[in-house]
């Protein structure tokens, strides 16, 4: 599946990390290659590897320079990438999750109407019309960068971040949409909220989404939001969250 694709450029990042870059585009096929390389490397232990950080079109491999060095890690990576060509496409999951776009939760709904020149109904219909790729997790533990949004929803970040964005809020920035896993300051424009938590680091599966997954949103009204939130708080299986 990856046989026809270009290999990444491999470069040192100081004396304790290397960077693999597959160009600079937001593209599912490229992200597939990043994730395939990540999974391949993650399953092959190598002394001194500290962290693997996959993102849109790159993978950073951090290592302990007292144990190994740039050349040894680069050789290990090159060997794995050549094997990776023959692996199957990565297994990704498709999530369908409820999202409430009620103006009481969509902190920036008026600003978004103005900036995009669309009605709230159009904005939410567009946002929930397609499925998104989880291109990367970062910014906060478990924060998924989802893309790309329909071109009509392209928007700027706040000039100065909001001091308080409630946990599980869903925001827009550029052609990305993302979910805040914790109460946090935030620069993305908020258009709704999920009725459940996407991160619980004390659990064996600490983060709901993995990079490479697909996510689509099912709009719910405020009554359904409160109902599912309550189920979630009481530890019941919250309704409406499906993994296909």
């Amino acid at each position, binding site marked *: 599946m990856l046989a026809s694709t270009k290999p990444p450029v491999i470069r040192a*990042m100081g004396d*304790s990390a290397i960077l693999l870059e597959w160009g600079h585009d937001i593209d599912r096929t490229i992200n597939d290659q990043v994730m395939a390389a990540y999974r391949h490397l993650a399953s092959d232990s190598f002394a001194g590897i500290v962290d693997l950080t*996959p*993102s849109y079109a790159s993978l950073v491999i951090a290592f302990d320079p007292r144990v190994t060095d740039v050349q040894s890690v680069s050789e290990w990576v090159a060997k794995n990438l050549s094997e990776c060509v023959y692996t199957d496409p990565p297994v990704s999951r498709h999530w369908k999750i409820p999202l409430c776009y009620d103006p009481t939760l969509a902190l920036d709904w008026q600003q978004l109407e103005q900036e995009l020149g669309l009605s709230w109904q159009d904005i939410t219909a567009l946002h929930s019309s397609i499925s998104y790729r989880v291109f990367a997790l970062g910014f906060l533990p478990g924060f998924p960068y989802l893309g790309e949004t329909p071109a009509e929803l392209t928007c700027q970040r706040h000039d100065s971040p909001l001091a308080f964005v409630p946990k599980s809020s869903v925001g827009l920035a550029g052609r990305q949409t993302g979910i805040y896993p914790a109460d946090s300051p935030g620069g993305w424009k908020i258009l709704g909220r999920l009725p459940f938590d996407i991160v619980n*680091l004390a659990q064996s599966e600490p983060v709901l989404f993995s990079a490479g997954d697909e996510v689509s949103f099912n709009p719910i009204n405020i009554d359904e939001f409160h109902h599912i939130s309550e189920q979630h708080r009481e530890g019941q299986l919250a309704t409406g969250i499906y993994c296909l």
Partner: protein
Amino acid sequence: MSVKFLRAGPQTSTQDQGRSGFAHLGVPRGGALDRGAMKTANWLIGNTDNQPVLEFSMAGPSLLFLAHTTIAITGADLSPKLDRQPLENNRSYRVKPGDNLHFGALKSGCRGYLAIAGNWRVPTLLGSASGLRAGHDELLPGAMWQRGDILQINAPQRQAWPKQTSPASSISHVISVMRGPEFDQLSDNARQQLFESEHILDSRSNRMGLRLTRPIDAIATNKQLSSGVTPGTVQLTASGEPIILLADAQTIGGYPRVLQVVSTAMDNLAQLKPGDAIALTLVE
């Protein structure tokens, strides 16, 4: 064995080697900023490298010991005293029930470390006792100490002999850096600004990163795809502010990574405080 916090100090946290293997979920590495100072403190009292220590920044805690134990202090010199007796960094001391360890003026460095002999009974998350923050939330609240808290430690089987070591090498204000992935995008003027003038550490510096006050000519591309960063990555923000990322930094970022601090200079960075002047020197 237990220790009571009479005063916690502004930024006193439990730290250990941190978390590795969770960067793909967006979880920062964390852990003690001055690894060498942590290791020395644990060695002095006969603890293994895996035991946590207390890390404090620019001001220390006041602790009441409720049992016999052995302690050692390393890193910043914060004028430690056991009751009225001044203590020295980099040596172990026996303490007895009722002893009060407290700190005074900051004489050198920024971050102090206190090791206490035995097996620490502290909560962990993803394999580490180090503090972990997400936005406004402390995800491991037990790692952040408050007045009145009690730290429980299982006493070791036998006490280590008193030990002493020579003080850590003096703090350097010249930081060795290598070219980062986006170094080539820096203008000649920006390179001059980076390497030919000194930089002052901003007061907004913290465990996530050290901010430098002098602005650098920013890189004129507005489309940088978010990509991995590590402790030691130097980002240049859109407004031209260089940030040297530290252990609690986020795992991916959208700013150009213009430099990368050499790994052996990271402990030294932990001992620099807001207002300090530094110079960056490029090594191959």
